[in-house]
């Protein structure tokens, strides 16, 4: 069986290493315990054959390495969906290609023990070495609850470790126990099988442990009275959304400008100190030009990941999903898909990764293939350029900045199209899920810095690695295509600008551009625009710099002047209003992002869905661009 992505090199493959799996319901603090045990070194991927995420890491006890696997959260070993079947099969040793773990660590929240006793009973029935890690003990006490951990251990017949996940106390003791699971206490008799009988058994166990259930969390109740209030809750929600977009546009600006200046300085150094023109071109245009735009976005992306991680960990995201569920249900999805769609306004990559919270795999796939329609931050430089070409800066419509309104409409268009696409997809090919919408609303908890860091770093690392490598590679390839073959003989007597223009017009890229020209000519794009389109398949940001190179602009980062004046062979202006509009609409819909496709592939575990997404979005983009252009031409006639 093929190993899953990124996990193939992990310690799991090494023979003889002991394997421990963490089992527990969602929101029990399992991921926190996992992060504490494995540090930030965990590898993530998918279980073979399904879209369920897999996290495996290692920890070491007295020099012995132990593999730790964070199984997906589950309420019971009696599955109701194929995804949940993964955990049940894996624990039973029936999952193809993966052995059952050697020992199990049950992670249970002390404040919801009356519910999770069901899962505990079922896991004990498996008759495997088992240890219970009891989390949120401090919260239990703070809310007037109580439990005698030693009595619980006696009643269950297994070792119990009290762990306070958000400041890591009890983790070292837990880790120390992992090496000796052969000697863990085992229950003398296994709990009963039938659910009603497990309930009776559980009640007896909790009574023997002097368990006193906690009172509802007063602080959460007070906050929810505002945040979920029909009026104030909605107001706060929109305020949070507005703040989200503020961060998107402005908060990271100083950092972005800082990086921009650093890159400009680097460009100058290259220009001054690198003698070889080929190398100079490669460095300044190929590398700095292409990767530069991406680098400038990093502060923005990291800040957004940070905000999303905070909202998720503090517990607000489930409230947002609760408020938006009715709207999302109209598209056939559910409230949690809203969070994924929202994240896609920053970048589709965290949005796609956020679909892991959706229990239904059809909902997950539907959200994954439609989320890229949401206007992501990469479209911003493209829109800025195009809006600048279309609308003069000082124009005002009804007293508001025309450029601002156009931007807003483009953003709105993207958002609406994603929802409509989700509706269509869910009512046709990904239709019909019997899975009920049930979602826990955990108490508000201030996330620890460590949890935030882990969440942020996990997401940012994917973005940096994929985006960095793919975009860097494409920029280099594009540069090579635009500047090769070097036509030494033909450019002998020309001036340097003419020579560059000649090489470019006869380069491999030009051949490519002319080859695809028939596809795009009905949209009014000329072959140079086509080259930029093909290049920006790697990342939308690359469109701007590529167009700049092609237009032989003096400053490839803001090619506005050169583009406005660009003419085709017959001397007609290329970037007329209908063409610019067509281009804007094209970018609204087209999936011009290799990184997104790569993440889609990883999350859906197949090439089928990324291929589908790319195809339908290309067709949609082409058709809508054509329609928009026709309307624009009709209106201006």
């Amino acid at each position: 069986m093929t190993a899953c992505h990124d996990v193939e090199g992990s310690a799991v493959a090494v023979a003889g290493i002991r394997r421990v799996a963490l089992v527990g319901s969602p929101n029990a603090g399992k991921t926190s315990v996992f992060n504490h045990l494995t540090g930030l070194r965990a590898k993530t991927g998918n279980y073979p054959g399904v879209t369920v995420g897999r996290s495996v890491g290692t920890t070491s006890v007295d020099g012995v390495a132990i593999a730790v696997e964070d199984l997906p959260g589950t309420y019971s070993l009696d599955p109701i969906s194929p995804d949940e079947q993964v955990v049940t099969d894996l624990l039973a040793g029936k999952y193809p290609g993966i052995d059952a773990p050697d020992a199990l660590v049950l992670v249970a929240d002390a404040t919801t023990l009356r519910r999770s006793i069901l899962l505990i009973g079922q896991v004990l029935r498996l008759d495997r070495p088992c240890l219970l890690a009891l989390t949120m003990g401090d919260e239990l006490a703070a809310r007037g609850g109580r439990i005698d951990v030693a009595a619980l251990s006696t009643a269950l017949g297994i070792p119990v470790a009290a762990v306070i996940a958000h400041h890591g106390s009890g983790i070292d003791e837990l880790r120390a126990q992992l090496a000796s699971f052969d000697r863990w206490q085992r229950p003398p008799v296994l709990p009963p099988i039938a659910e009603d009988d497990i309930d009776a058994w559980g009640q007896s166990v909790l009574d023997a442990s002097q368990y006193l259930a906690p009172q509802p969390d007063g602080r959460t109740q007070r906050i929810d009275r505002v945040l979920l209030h029909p009026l104030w809750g909605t107001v706060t929600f929109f305020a949070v959304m507005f703040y989200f977009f503020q961060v998107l546009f402005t908060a990271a600006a100083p950092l972005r400008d800082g990086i921009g200046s650093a890159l400009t300085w680097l460009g100058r150094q290259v220009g001054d100190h690198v003698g070889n023109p080929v190398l100079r071109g490669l460095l300044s245009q190929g590398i700095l030009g292409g990767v530069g735009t991406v680098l400038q976005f990093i502060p923005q992306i990291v800040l957004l990941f940070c905000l999303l991680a905070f909202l998720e960990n503090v517990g607000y995201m489930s409230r947002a999903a609760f408020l938006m569920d009715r709207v999302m249900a109209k598209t056939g999805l559910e409230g949690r898909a809203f969070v994924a769609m929202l994240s896609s306004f920053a970048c589709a990559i965290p949005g796609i990764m956020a679909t892991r919270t959706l229990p239904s795999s059809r909902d997950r796939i539907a959200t994954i293939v439609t989320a890229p329609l949401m206007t992501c931050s990469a479209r911003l430089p493209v829109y800025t350029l195009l809006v600048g070409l279309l609308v003069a800066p000082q124009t005002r419509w009804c007293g508001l900045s025309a450029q601002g309104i156009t931007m807003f409409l483009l953003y709105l268009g993207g958002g609406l199209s994603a929802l409509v696409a989700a509706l269509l997809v869910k009512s046709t090919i990904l239709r019909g899920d019997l899975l009920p919408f049930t979602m826990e609303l955990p108490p508000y908890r201030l996330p620890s810095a460590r949890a935030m860091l882990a969440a942020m770093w996990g997401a940012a690392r994917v973005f940096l690695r994929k985006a960095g490598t793919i975009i860097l590679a494409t920029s280099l390839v594009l540069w090579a295509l635009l500047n090769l073959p070097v036509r030494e003989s033909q450019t002998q007597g020309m001036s340097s600008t003419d020579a560059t223009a000649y090489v470019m017009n006869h380069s491999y890229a030009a051949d490519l551009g002319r080859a695809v020209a028939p596809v795009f000519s009905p949209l009014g794009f000329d072959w140079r625009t086509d080259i930029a389109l093909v290049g920006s398949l790697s990342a939308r940001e690359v469109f701007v710099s590529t167009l700049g190179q092609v237009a032989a602009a003096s400053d490839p980062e803001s090619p506005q002047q050169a583009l406005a004046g660009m003419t085709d062979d017959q001397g007609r202006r290329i970037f007329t209003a209908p063409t610019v509009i067509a281009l804007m609409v094209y970018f609204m819909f087209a999936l011009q992002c290799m990184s997104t496709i790569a993440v889609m592939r990883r999350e859906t575990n197949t090439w089928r869905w990324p291929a589908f997404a790319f195809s339908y979005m290309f067709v949609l983009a082409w058709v809508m661009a054509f329609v928009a252009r026709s309307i624009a031409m009709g209106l201006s006639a």
Partner: protein
Amino acid sequence: MIPIHATATSNPQQLRWVVAADRLPARGAVRHAPGRLGALLGDGVIDHIEVRPADVVITLQSDNSWRDWGDDIRQALCDALLNPAGWDVDAADDAAGLAAITAELLAGPIGALAESHGGSIELVSIEGDSVNVRLSGACHGCPAAAGTLHDKLQGELRRRSGREIRVHSETSSAAIPLGKKLLSLIVR
């Protein structure tokens, strides 16, 4: 199934089956139990059953294992506990046992009942099948409360010991004899 769970003891053949005290039959060594449990005891699968204040201790015969018999015995035990009258128990230690049961009840449900009415109840002495208690506080002024406590205590003691226990309550105030006298005057 009634709430029940099993805890290990120092003897691997012996387990404590923890059950709520009010579901337990009379305390002591079990000679015969109803249903399947009795059959297992009779057949020798189970070596020994003892009912204690808060649990039932079951010892398996030495070549049987709890892994094999656990589910079976659990089900049998639950079924048998639904019929406490059908148990035949060797009440081990009469007076001490009765004193223990009474003390447990007074510390537990009966005492709590008395407190909820603003009074209290304590054990004075035990003679054979007679248990003498004293009521004080609000209880002693109220014939109804005294009657309820008396009936409840007597009922529980009879159920748990399997014998015809009789409860006598003294009262700690002179007011009651006076009150009774007045009452008897009026009634006459």
